[in-house]
């Protein structure tokens, strides 16, 4: 699956510039599902980018694990979910030195949460490289109940926590790594526009 091209939006919406090799510096790499192909392409550009890389992959049903494992990263680890590899990821950030690069590839939920963790750990934003691949499903925070609904694919959608029907905004919280969902029928209770599939 190729790199996702998103349509232009407000400044709040993250932009994923695509991965380019920063050379054989120490690196942390984190990818989910189709994001694996971005890392495979990255290693194709410059195989040395893997020499000092700690690669964590969340397959989420995708079949790319064996190809990723064969890229020659210094450390390779597969995990069933972001939550499952969070402690390993935090430890890798805690042990990293300035000059380390972070490569994130895959869905917006993964990129957003991993970016927030890295910034909190002190990694400069300029050392974070991102590429979107795969599902355009969003991680949404309900601005009313603050609950987070994962894998939102329609607009509007029903908040998994409070049940309000939420409009999918491009307004993104970098702290939470989530988009903001706002009650779509607050002014006109019960009048809800038909749900549409979220487009890139």
């Amino acid at each position: 699956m190729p790199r996702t091209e998103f349509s232009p939006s407000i400044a709040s919406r993250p932009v994923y510039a695509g991965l380019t090799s920063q050379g054989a510096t120490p690196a942390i790499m984190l990818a989910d599902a189709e994001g694996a192909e971005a890392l495979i392409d990255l290693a194709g550009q410059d195989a040395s980018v893997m020499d000092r890389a700690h690669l964590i992959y969340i397959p989420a049903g995708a079949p790319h694990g064996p190809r990723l494992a064969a890229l020659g990263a210094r450390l390779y680890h597969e995990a069933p979910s972001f939550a499952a590899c969070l402690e390993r990821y935090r430890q890798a950030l805690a042990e990293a030195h300035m000059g380390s690069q972070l490569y994130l590839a895959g869905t917006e939920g993964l990129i957003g949460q991993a970016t927030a963790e890295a910034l909190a750990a002190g990694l400069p934003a300029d050392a974070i490289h991102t590429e979107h691949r795969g599902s355009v499903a969003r991680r949404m925070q309900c601005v009313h109940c603050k609950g987070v609904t994962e894998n939102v694919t329609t607009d509007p959608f029903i908040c998994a926590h409070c049940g309000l029907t939420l409009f999918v905004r491009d307004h993104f919280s970098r702290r939470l790594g989530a988009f903001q969902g706002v009650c779509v029928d607050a002014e006109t209770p019960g009048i809800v526009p038909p749900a549409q599939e979220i487009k890139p």
Partner: protein
Amino acid sequence: MKSQLLRVTAIEPLSPLVSRFRFEHPEGAALPLFSGGAHIVVEMPDGEILRRNAYSLISDPLDGSCYEIAVRREDTGRGGSRFMHTKVAVGDLLRLSVPLNLFSLDLRAKKHVLIAGGIGITPFIAQLRQIARLQVPFELHYAARSRDEAAGLKLLPDVPQIHVHISDEGNRMDLGAILGAQPLGTHVYTCGPEGLIDAVAETGRRLGWPKAVLHSEVFMSPPPGAPFEVTLEKTGRTISVAPHQSLLEALEASDVEIEWSCRGGACGRCETGVSACDGHIEHHDHWLSDDEKASQTKIMPCVSRFQGAKLALDL
């Protein structure tokens, strides 16, 4: 308030070339506080010439009772530091600008690494006091040619985070080792000669450091050069700039007032439009982008000069 007349209350040699000057309000009023890395501009009325030199404040940022600066005597310089060393006495009144900081700590940093070369130690003296209050990890690396040159030694606290590198004693600063193993969230601040700042930038680049966390301040006075003339577009006046005078000083001497603050090519305040340029502008500033410099449509009169047939300014 842009400036205030302050009394010199102490002058103390710190090394054969460097002296500390202390300024207090003539009536004992409190002075505006500042933050570590801030500088003031001292006005020096020297006969016909009014010089204005910027100096980092080295006193405690939260102590409003005085301002202190350290001045290195440059006998081959333009005369400002010589004026301070030979003409200024305790009891004199001098006009000082209010503090301005173009080299402040980034308070988001989890650790501060300060790298000083020679007299470039001065902004860090006040920053160390601020860091001590912030209780954030830090290290300071101070490089000087010899112990005699290392005027900052008398001003630095005796703490293990401070590393002194005296090249005469064979203890040179190893930038690769300093930048090679810093934890995430470290910001680096370099002050000193341009060669040191370039070396830190190059080492950082090689080790993968983003530029945004490498801060620097060059101690720059206006470089001398060949005399030249400028035309002021709006009045048609022509002004001559002498070899040891900056364009800004020549404009001021002709009563053309323009906004300025750092007088060292860093702050951008005196940026002036160029309406005609037949020749080559010698850009010495750190403000204009490479493209702006190449276009020859803007000039920083505080440090930049001109060679050629005609330079006209939007003034």
